[in-house]
């Protein structure tokens, strides 16, 4: 095998793959795929006749059921399926309603590949964190040491021989240096070496697959230039949990209608001339989705935390934060002027002893009692894949009387039998949580964020939050994407039902009055069946991938129901090789690799972000890739029972449905 670091061609396929590949390929060349191609060609010919009259056939308001053929037709070149991504292995028959392009939302009709995401009452929420053998730690530390030494040597000579490259780090012409040499050391000497694995430019919809703009670098990744070609890859790197990142379908149609009616912008902050009726509708829907009294929507997810937390707390308050909380929470906490204490990640003993200490001690020095104590936790931690231990926290809340703020940036829409986040997953009353915060970027395929809570509190935040006065309000098309995707998760009640009754049942459907009157969702979205299917598929894919990886012998973090599956690589060097090998495969796969400072020093990892748009076969593809690469990179470090890949793939449903 050639050195994986110098990898340019796809890696040699091992025996398992060889055995498998003939059947895999023949399936694609079967009569069915021939029929698909035939019907496409036919449709293309038909559209050409009509399209020659109007110049912009793309802007039609057709129903979603026909968009598959239409979109395929509008592409000048038919899909090349050499990577095995363009067509489903089992093509749709006339019984199936295909609502989306397979490249954006995979076709997976098998009802066995569904699972309901919910916490089994009575079971403990435990994470088995497995440490690797000691030599892994040793080599990881050694690799850091080596890189630090090399970096300093290169800095030493670089500053003497190429001063122009270091100008911004040294005093120049009387100006102080722009940033300190030490601050940027990690970026310059670690990240730059593997910069081809980060922020790869892409084009098109980041759905099930993604189009990467190919790029090359002639100066060791200091600069990149685009080669002009693109590579289509299986996308397991976007936070597209429910697969709503789509350019067709009912949601996109609603957004288009909105752009015609409302334009692009609302021109101002909420309190200064930028409030649209869509905001009022949207906030009511979000509140009923979450089961809270009221909600406030902000135009940026990060800013939701950084502008709302300062409005909640002031001097004399205490914010208790999980050590792995997101940067936006820390940003907001710092701006609030409140005291901040942290506890060990998800460790309820550490939290309780901290609570006992801070309440008994009171404020530092003065020992006055705290005005308020706000506990801020995340529903699902994006780096660890761990779920918050909500039942225990609520027990502690009863005893210690603190206020609870749950950041559901990743869990909203992704967890729970009804997609309502961690409260739904654990089956607790959402109103027992004081403030629910979340973003629309991930599950809803939109942008922005919300906070929800009691009416009095949200009204206070409308006035005191920085965003209402100073930040632009959320744009109409984004707001409508949220409304449409949220309504399709909830389902819409019949217009004859009473609004009060609908509002009382949680988690129930949305009432038609909570949506703009002009919004016309297709029937599968309206009755909630498609939203339910997406939730079930996401839950299945998450469990399948995380359990499959464990059975292959990989060390993964987090809970099995988490749609984020971190696979721990440990060594910094394995990170870029893993990324390159995944990308260079016959079916290219895009993954996100993260390391220090986003993770602890020794646990560099790859994060799989599972989506409902993936099919079971896509997860198979990923498992197979990991299986092969894992052997090369020595990643299968988990002791215990292992299954061969074939067994995992054939028993997927059983693997997912067994309890721990």
């Amino acid at each position, binding site marked *: 095998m050639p050195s994986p670091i110098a990898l340019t061609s796809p890696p040699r396929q091992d025996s398992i793959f060889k055995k498998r590949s003939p059947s895999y390929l023949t399936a694609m060349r079967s009569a069915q795929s021939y029929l698909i191609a035939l019907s496409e060609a036919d449709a293309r010919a038909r559209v050409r006749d009509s399209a020659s009259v109007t110049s912009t056939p793309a802007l039609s308001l057709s129903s979603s059921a026909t968009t598959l053929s239409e979109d395929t037709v509008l592409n000048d070149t038919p899909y090349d399926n050499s990577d095995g991504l363009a067509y489903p292995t089992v093509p749709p028959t006339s019984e199936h309603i295909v609502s989306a392009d397979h490249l954006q939302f995979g076709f997976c009709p098998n009802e066995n590949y569904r699972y309901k995401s919910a916490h089994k009452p009575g079971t403990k929420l435990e994470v088995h964190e497995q440490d690797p053998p000691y030599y892994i730690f040793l080599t990881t530390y050694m690799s850091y040491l080596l890189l630090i030494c090399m970096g300093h040597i290169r800095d030493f000579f670089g500053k003497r021989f190429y001063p122009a490259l270091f100008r911004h780090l040294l005093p120049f012409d009387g100006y102080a*240096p722009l940033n300190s040499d030490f601050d940027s050391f990690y970026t310059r000497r670690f990240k730059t070496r593997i910069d081809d694995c980060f922020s790869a430019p892409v084009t098109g919809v980041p759905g099930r697959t993604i189009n990467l703009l190919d790029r090359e670098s002639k100066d060791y990744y200091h600069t990149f230039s685009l080669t002009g070609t693109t590579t289509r890859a299986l996308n397991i790197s976007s936070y597209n949990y429910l697969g709503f990142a789509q350019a067709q379908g009912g*949601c996109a149609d609603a957004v288009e209608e909105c752009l015609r009616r409302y334009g692009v912008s609302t021109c101002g902050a909420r309190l200064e001339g930028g409030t649209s009726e869509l905001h009022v509708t949207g906030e009511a829907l979000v509140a009923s989705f979450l089961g809270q009294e009221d909600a406030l929507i902000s135009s940026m997810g990060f800013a939701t935390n950084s502008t709302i937390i300062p409005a909640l707390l002031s001097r004399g308050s205490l914010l208790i934060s999980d050590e792995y909380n997101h*940067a936006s929470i820390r940003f907001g906490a710092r701006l609030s002027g409140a005291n901040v204490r942290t506890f060990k990640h998800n460790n309820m003993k550490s939290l309780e002893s901290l609570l006992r200490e801070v309440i*008994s001690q009171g404020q530092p020095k003065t020992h006055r009692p705290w005005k308020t104590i706000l506990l801020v936790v995340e529903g699902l931690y994006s780096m660890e894949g761990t779920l918050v231990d909500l039942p225990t926290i609520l027990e502690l809340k009863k005893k210690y009387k603190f206020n609870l703020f749950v950041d559901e940036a990743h869990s909203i829409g992704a967890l729970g039998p009804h997609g309502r986040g961690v409260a739904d997953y654990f089956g607790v009353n959402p109103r027992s949580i004081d403030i629910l915060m979340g973003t629309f970027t991930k599950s809803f395929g939109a942008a922005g964020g919300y906070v929800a809570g009691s009416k009095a509190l949200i009204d206070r935040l409308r006035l005191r939050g920085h965003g209402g006065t100073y930040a632009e309000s959320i744009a109409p098309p984004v707001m409508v994407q949220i409304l449409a995707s949220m309504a399709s998760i909830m389902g819409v009640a019949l217009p004859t039902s009473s609004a009060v009754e609908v509002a009382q049942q949680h988690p129930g459907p949305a009432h038609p009055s909570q949506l703009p009157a002009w919004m016309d969702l297709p029937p599968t979205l309206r009755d909630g069946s498609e939203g339910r299917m997406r939730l079930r598929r996401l839950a299945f894919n998450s469990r399948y991938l995380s359990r499959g990886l464990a059975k292959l012998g990989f060390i993964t973090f987090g809970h099995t129901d988490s749609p984020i599956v971190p696979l721990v690589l440990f060594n910094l060097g394995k990170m870029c090789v893993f990324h390159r090998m995944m990308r260079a495969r016959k079916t290219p796969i895009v993954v996100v690799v993260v390391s220090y400072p986003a993770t602890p020093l020794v646990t560099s990892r790859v994060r799989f972000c599972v989506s409902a748009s993936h099919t079971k076969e896509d997860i198979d593809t990923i498992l197979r890739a990991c299986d092969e690469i894992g052997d090369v990179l020595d990643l299968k470090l988990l002791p215990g029972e292992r299954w061969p890949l074939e067994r995992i793939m054939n028993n997927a449903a059983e693997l997912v449905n067994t309890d721990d």
Partner: protein
Amino acid sequence: MTTTIDGSASALEPLFAFLSYALIQAESAVYKIPGSHVIARYVKSSHQNDPGRTVLEILLALFAIRTLLQSRTRADNGEKHFIQFSEKEVDELVDEWTPEPLGAPLTPEEQSDLASVPVVSGANGPRPKLANTGKQVLNLASYNFTGLAGNETINVRAIETLRKYGVGSCDVHMDLERDIADFLGTEASILYSQGFSTIPCVISAFAKRGDIIVADRGVNFAIQKGLQISRSTVRWFDHNDLKSLEDVLLSVEKERRKRRGTSSQDDSLSPRVSLRKDGAMVDLPELIELKHKYKYRLILDESISFGTVGRTGRGLTELYNVPATQIDMIVGSVANGLNSSGGFCAGSRIVVDHQRINGTSFVFSAAVPALLAVSASEGINILRNTPSILSTLQENVRAIRAVLDRVEAITIPSHAASPIIHIHLRSSAPAASVSAKPSNPATPAPREAPSFDIVGEERLLQDIVDEALAQGVWTTRARRLRGQELVDARPSIRLAVTAALSRKECERAAGVIKAAVVKVLAKRK
């Protein structure tokens, strides 16, 4: 007696044998490790030469182990203010503690304040329909300076983008970043996803604890938050007073010379040119001169002036004909200037690339949705190709000012060319004479604290706004975060002039505002 000793010695015999055996085994095991011979020889010879050294080395090793095992975070328990309680006492304290409610319910004034915000039904633009009254109004409240809202080309481009990329964020903002850089004439630019959250992150990406920032006393709230989050030392100069700035720069210079060695490594100068609070503008050429003289870096906040000032809307640099490269970082708002969403920072490539890794809200947040980025690019295109938009805007500003400047009861602090017009009530007390007392650069409080009745003035201004709205002209009181801002600004009505209204309509709107001012103030007397 001897027998007992013998007896015990014989009893211990197997133990001794075992010990010596274990010692030999351990020794041979140690010697199996490659290189251990060298170390053993070194230890032996060093101990022979100087036994004291062995003791010292053992102590050093123990110290190293202790340091490694020590917790890296400072434990609060160790502090002298910690009071030891028994478990029972802690339980009692926990039971006793009653927190304040997280958010107190709104007072009736606050409720009416919130209720006074009009809701737009349908698209917002120069003549929107309001949901509460169902009436069409002339809009001088929303930021639509160049009239891009509802532009047909932009809408079509947005729909095309939707069909290609969907709504979610996507990495296509590279085009917009290039367009902004080209438009302003800088090397590069970086896009953030909310205008308000841009400048705090830009400031905190470059300034850290120990750095010095010199800032205008009138900087907007976003900059204040940026200064707070950066933890830098801030020195303040009087609002828009370059003489005061020079004094402060001199005093900072002196301070630094006094304690050379601990001098700061990064100084930035961050005057605001945001027109938000009162619509005043800084004299840029003089500012640049000062920057070169004292070797400072300059952050310019153009969140209002970008897209509204200058011949084609390139902002202050165009107005004063200063090359944009002279300014280290230009921060602007895509939301206000281009009727889309987001903010940007333009500057040299090094400045921009640094933020791609160190700009907190850039790194930890999703990008602007593709269709909004494309709309903004199209907005720049329109500004480039139709310079008449900006001249229309200026004409409208002049038309409104011509009416309002003659109203006795109000004062307007805004620059004559500013499309943001703030209206203050003229205070009954005579204007405070400018005292010669220098201001203290360490505090943001101005030299002479102005006195005004916030509640009273706000109520009057709101009455004026309501009266104008009843007559079909939508204006807004400048909203503030009372209690959270460094200095409470004087209450005002804020007009945002737009090029999308005709001159006639602007004159009519100004007439309505004038009448409303006169009517409300007459009622007070």
